[in-house]
């Protein structure tokens, strides 16, 4: 018999019913909720007189709208009334339906994709959904993790199942070792640059190869997080000792005998040697350079030593036009060196890069330096309350503050600028988030996606630099 891929195994283990028409019911072990995509789902349940199928599978927290400064007055203190209503609505819905929620003032509050793994609410082999496309993050644990829409949030609440069609299998293999100073973010941006933002559409991507095996859980999460930017709803990394060590003692993780039993199962969560993938993409780890996005789509990236492209050199007319439009929006000239891009703001945080390791990397770069006076603002927003506490225990907050960066409370913040943190028109921002679409970080704002270390280096210099030069 042909071997199974990790995705095949996860699919089979969660298959409740295969329907004749090709669709299937997939059982959902963990459902994460936040305030933006859930209100209409709860409303739908109420209107239909339905109850959640299984309460203990759900975990909620507000993240998109929460302020990252001055929380002294709690939810009532949220200045924007519409943001406040969403947070209040989540609180009300969770209370009414009996769903566990880490409320805004709870130390465990944070971005859903940070708190799931942090709490051990994300465990290897689980099927996980959340009304947020970056749910693919959890695939780093060998999970089947999908981003879903609000109708599906309601569907999962009511039935504990998701209607899905099986996707095709893609392996993205990163061979050999990564160079010094190269992070998970650089790897995933390089992958997206290579396969394009639709390259993974219809596929579940497994990231493998020596370079991935060598990465920490945080870095694997960064990579899986951005699978969706490559068009894939699902991104995964096989379970290994790194995974098991990370989850073992987390609050929601199994204890005692149950843990041993779980570990035995977790160890089977990898693709078989004979497994066949529908598509394989290979990268050499040693060739991955620190990446910077120059355009308005995550595939528009270049190595920091490279240049902004010349649209005239692009043969495909649709792509050429895309480049012209992006350069106009970004206010960049063809062929200019990436290191000539000047910045107005720096944002370090988000579900892509708001974990403790990310903050450590950024702190190591800024330590003993000052933020460039040409910058209007540089801020660090931890991904969760617990990341914040840990960073403070390690003294990272002091390093940032001494260097002139702002140290904030946890949330999505400037990743999508739903709260008060946003870019002004025409401003360039080095951001560790995941999307550089027009207007994503504020109307007319210009986002450059980079790793935390690269963002930190840019903060010190006021323009992009190769962070590896600062490390020497």
């Amino acid at each position: 018999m042909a071997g199974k891929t990790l995705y095949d195994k996860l699919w089979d283990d969660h298959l409740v019913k295969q329907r004749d028409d090709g669709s299937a019911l997939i059982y959902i072990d963990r459902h994460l909720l936040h305030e933006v995509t859930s209100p209409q789902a709860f409303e739908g349940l109420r209107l239909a007189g339905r109850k959640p199928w299984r309460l203990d599978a759900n975990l909620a927290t507000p993240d998109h709208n929460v302020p990252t400064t001055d929380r002294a007055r709690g939810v009532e203190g949220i200045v924007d009334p519409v943001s406040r209503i969403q947070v209040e609505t989540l609180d009300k819905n969770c209370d009414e339906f009996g769903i566990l929620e880490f409320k805004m003032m709870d130390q465990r509050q944070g971005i859903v994709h940070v708190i799931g793994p942090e709490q051990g609410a994300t465990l290897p082999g689980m099927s996980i959904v959340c009304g947020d496309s970056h749910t693919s993050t959890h695939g780093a644990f060998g999970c089947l993790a999908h981003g879903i829409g609000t109708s599906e949030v309601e569907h999962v609440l009511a039935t504990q199942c998701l209607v899905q069609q099986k996707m095709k299998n893609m392996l993205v293999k990163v061979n050999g070792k990564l160079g010094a100073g190269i992070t998970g973010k650089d790897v995933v941006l390089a992958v997206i640059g290579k396969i394009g933002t639709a390259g993974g559409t219809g596929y579940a991507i497994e990231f493998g190869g020596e370079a991935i095996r060598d990465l920490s859980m945080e870095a694997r999460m960064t990579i899986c997080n951005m699978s969706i930017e490559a068009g894939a709803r699902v991104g995964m990394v096989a379970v290994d000792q790194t995974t098991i060590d990370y989850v073992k003692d987390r609050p929601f993780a199994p204890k005692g005998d149950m843990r041993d039993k779980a570990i035995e199962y977790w160890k089977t969560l990898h693709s078989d040697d004979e497994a066949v993938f529908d598509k394989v993409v290979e990268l050499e780890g040693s060739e991955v350079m620190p990446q910077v996005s120059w355009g308005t789509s995550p595939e528009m990236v270049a190595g920091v030593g490279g240049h902004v492209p010349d649209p005239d050199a692009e043969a495909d007319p649709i792509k050429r036009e895309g480049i012209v439009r992006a350069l106009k929006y970004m206010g960049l000239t063809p062929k200019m060196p990436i290191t000539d891009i000047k910045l107005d703001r720096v944002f370090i945080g988000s579900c892509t890069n708001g974990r403790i390791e990310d903050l450590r990397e950024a702190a190591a770069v800024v330590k003993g330096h000052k933020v460039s006076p040409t910058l209007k603002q540089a801020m660090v927003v931890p991904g969760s309350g617990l990341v914040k506490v840990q960073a403070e225990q390690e003294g990272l907050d002091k390093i940032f503050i001494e260097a002139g960066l702002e140290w904030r409370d946890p949330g999505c913040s400037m990743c999508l600028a739903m709260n008060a943190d946003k870019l002004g028109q025409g401003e360039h921002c080095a951001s560790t988030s995941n999307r550089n679409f027009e207007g994503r970080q504020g109307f007319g704002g210009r986002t450059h996606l980079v790793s935390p270390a690269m963002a930190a280096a840019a903060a010190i210099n006021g323009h992009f630099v190769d962070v590896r030069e600062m490390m020497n």
Partner: protein
Amino acid sequence: MRALKQHKGIVAPMDRSNVDTDMIIPKQFLKSIKRTGFGPNLFDELRYLDEGRPDQDCSKRPINPDFMLNQDRYKNASVLLARRNFGCGSSREHAPWALEDFGFHVIIAPSFADIFYNNCFKNGLLPIVLNEEIVDRLFRETEAEEGYQLAIDLEAKTVTTPSGESFTFEVDDFRRHCLLNGLDDIGVTLEDAEVIKAYEASRRETAPWLFGAGG
């Protein structure tokens, strides 16, 4: 949910690839806790010259005359013609809600982002994939002829042009069935409640740590 069997309507051309969900409905409008009323803010940043905010009277805002939906000939469009990878970006269902609220019933493109494609069916919108050459042609015909309409038949899985030319498209049977009948997915799934319970019971045996956890 609104059913869709046949539809005929004016075509509006959205001539750019990779239209993302932030472009379809900027995030400041995601703060609503309702499902309706997003239509006036569809493509907000392209449609208006000022920065959109929730609770604005959109009829008083300065419009971008170059944007196609602001041209009289496309104002009553109900079929959106689009380019590659339409709907990429976030999982926000506000994107199909906004398209539906504006009055669209059908979107035709050479390819769609997965989550968006899926979300359309749940909101009475039919996304149709036609190959790039056909889409190209439809763009040319739409632009050449004011009031250009396409007729869509979901039962027969065809798109028909005014000249009577017909193209077939693929759509999976379950989604088609639900959309044809305006069926609510949840109701359909709950018909299998016993199967779900049986799965759960066996899973409790083999993977008990997945149940009852709560920090």
